């Protein structure tokens, strides 16, 4: 049997994953093949999702947008449907790696891998996104805010694949994705996704814990106080309190904790400037 298997339907793909316990699903391969090359992972097979038509494309649904798991970063970075409070997703997609890797990597792969420092998680948590997971038993939707459970651990079961990301319909209010990184295209040292929401904001912090950090309580407390620097500082501090950053080559844990309130304040002021 080939090492790379190329099913044509989702049913076939999850069937193969159920049948072959040591196989891994592969979407764009940008992270998976890099990990294979570094001998970090071992698999009996890669089940390529690239040939499954239903995983491609971005479609409007009754409730908003459905982004197929095989949608490449380059497509999202150029997607006209991502306006208003969804424009942060477009901004984030355009900051992943470089143009060539953006032709390869996919949103389904990125969400499936759940690298804490990757760009989509914070944006999707901020955007009230749901992850569509499909296995042999069918599909289920999981809120992005619940999806990541530990470092590289998610609610996705081994035999499941990320078939789509669901987002509410775009609202005509500003949103911004701020990323601090050593050089353009690097993983984030810290990142903040921020969207206007009436007289408040929705905010999620990335790369500062095992998953994106969002606090609806803190958001409620900030409502109506977006011009009050003391309230904004308290909001940033509340998010930093929820963070659990690593020490690594991109920065120390302490540095990241200090970045959070500043980046959050900067993102909120970006939005005020765009009103």
């Amino acid at each position, binding site marked *: 049997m080939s090492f790379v298997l190329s099913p044509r339907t989702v049913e076939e793909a999850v069937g193969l994953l159920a049948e072959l316990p040591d196989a891994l699903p592969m979407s764009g391969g940008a992270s998976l093949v890099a990990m294979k090359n*570094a001998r970090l992972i071992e698999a009996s097979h890669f089940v390529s999702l690239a040939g499954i038509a239903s995983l491609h494309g971005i479609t409007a649904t009754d409730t908003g947008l459905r982004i197929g798991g095989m949608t490449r970063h380059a497509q999202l970075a150029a997607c006209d449907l991502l306006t208003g409070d969804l424009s942060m997703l477009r901004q984030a997609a355009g900051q992943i790696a470089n143009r060539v890797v953006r032709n390869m990597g996919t949103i389904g792969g990125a969400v499936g*891998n759940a690298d804490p420092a990757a760009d989509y998680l914070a944006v999707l948590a901020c955007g009230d996104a749901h992850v569509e997971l499909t296995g042999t038993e069918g599909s289920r939707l999981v809120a992005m805010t619940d999806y990541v459970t530990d470092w*590289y651990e998610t609610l996705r079961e081994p035999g499941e694949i990320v078939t789509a990301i669901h987002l509410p319909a775009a609202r005509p209010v500003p949103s911004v994705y701020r990323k601090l990184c050593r050089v353009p295209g690097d993983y984030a040292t810290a990142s903040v996704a921020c969207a206007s929401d009436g007289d408040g904001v929705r905010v999620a912090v990335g790369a500062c814990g095992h998953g994106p950090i969002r606090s609806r309580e803190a958001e409620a407390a900030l409502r109506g106080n977006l011009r009050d620097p003391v309230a904004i500082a308290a909001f940033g501090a509340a998010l930093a309190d929820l963070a659990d950053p690593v*020490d690594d080559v991109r920065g120390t*844990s302490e540095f990241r904790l200090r970045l959070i309130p500043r980046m959050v304040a900067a993102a909120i002021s970006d939005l005020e400037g765009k009103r």
Partner: protein
Amino acid sequence: MHLEGEFTVAAPRLTVWQAVHDPALLARCVPGCEEAAQIGENSYRAVVKAKVGPISARFTLVVDIVEEEAPDRLRIKAQGEEGSRASMLTAESELALSDDGDGRTRVTWASDVNLSGRLGKYGLGLMKKKAESLSAEFVTAFSRRVETGEVVE
């Protein structure tokens, strides 16, 4: 990477001292430990499997007690290799036991762990998070087993 911690066990110091010398008991407390055996007076061998996301590793460790002052203090050196794979692990740990009143024992520990090879490249930041959560799991399991009297004499 440096790890340290402290916890209390509701058991007398001598019981805890025996427990930290019992490979069968320890094997049941170390997360991912697949086997453990005494191979010399102060030497033990263990196979431990660890997993971070899609990456898993199985280390064969040789653990030596290099210094001990019964029933207070213990210094341990561990060295391990990842089968045919290119990772090496070394750790130097110190453990101190003290009476905490009411028949309780306070355990203070510190460990310096070095990881080289394919996993060393992966990012010690993340490895440290993982090591901390494994330590916490160990402490919970160890305390419970010692407190319920599961010490093999």
